[in-house]
């Protein structure tokens, strides 16, 4: 097979998403937009991890009629990054929920979602 490897595209997309998310978190003043930036970065990290686990020509690591147990080693992708991403997605969800709860608390206290209102923790 010639040309660029398939997983390079997933990897590049993931890295680009991380950069976009970082940019959003650093430049935006609105708390919800910062949380969206975090989510983008999170998704980017997941994509990068899945891309790294890809093996040329591999398929999903599930043994069935299509992938008999005998030649599973030669035909499946690495199951470890997939398992790690499963963990990472759930933890990302938990972190996002806590951030949104914080946003609600900040809005209750300051009546605005602009981060400049929280000036007491500024350096």
């Amino acid at each position, binding site marked *: 097979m010639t040309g660029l490897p398939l997983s390079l595209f997933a990897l590049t997309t993931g890295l680009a998403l991380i950069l976009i998310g970082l940019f959003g978190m650093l430049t935006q003043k609105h708390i919800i937009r910062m949380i969206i930036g975090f989510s983008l970065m999170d998704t980017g990290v997941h994509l990068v991890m899945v891309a790294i686990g890809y093996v040329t020509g591999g398929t999903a690591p599930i043994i069935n009629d299509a992938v008999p147990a005998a030649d599973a080693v030669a035909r499946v992708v690495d199951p470890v990054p997939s398992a790690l991403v499963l*963990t990472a997605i759930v933890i990302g969800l938990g972190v996002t929920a806590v951030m949104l709860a914080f946003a609600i608390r900040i809005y209750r206290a300051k009546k605005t979602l602009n981060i400049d209102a929280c000036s007491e923790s500024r350096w």
Partner: protein
Amino acid sequence: MIRRLLIFVTLLLTAAIFARLALNYTEHTQLSKLATHYAGQGPAELGAPNLVTAVVVTYRGLDTLGEVTVLFISAAGVGLMLRRRQQVAVEAEDKKPSSEIVVTAAQLLLPMVFLFGVYVFVNGHLSPGGGFQGGAIIAAGSLLLLLTLPGAELRQRLIAVTESLSGFGYVVIGVLGVILAGGFLDNRIMSLGTYGTLFSAGAIPIIYTLVGLKVGAELSAVLGRFRDTGEQ
């Protein structure tokens, strides 16, 4: 101005690191040693056709227990932060009831959504899916309930009991693994059964059922908290 410059430099440097990573990237042509063991021995050792499940529930079971704990802590944190001051009755503010069509459709769909969630986590060791995915589907069902029936109350007590019991059961099974089998969270505490059937792979379906119930209950509780905090 200086702030913008700093952000620009930070992004540029990060992009440079990423560019190096992407340019030097070569796709793997074979599995790593560890993955070779998991793919080669996993089905025979644990009896689970889904290798990701085998890794998540048994080989790296301790990580998953930690993950469930993190999710629990975040759900508790959301609950603590969005605590309702007294019973500010949600139903007091007159919300517009949903239309007949939406309500009927939701009532028709809800049992099926919940059933599908259960299906996904019960079959976690055989097909794509598992406790976290099934739990998320159940929470999606709860979200449908909360959106279509604004007056509906999630039964917080039932959710708390489900969550605690399944978390407790998960740890008990883990400890049983130490006593009866090779180590903490070992799934071979009971017979592996016939390979590829629903009741096989030892304790994996039980653990995933508990995880599914726990995740579903926790996410539903979080959604309920966010809904109930509508008033300021």
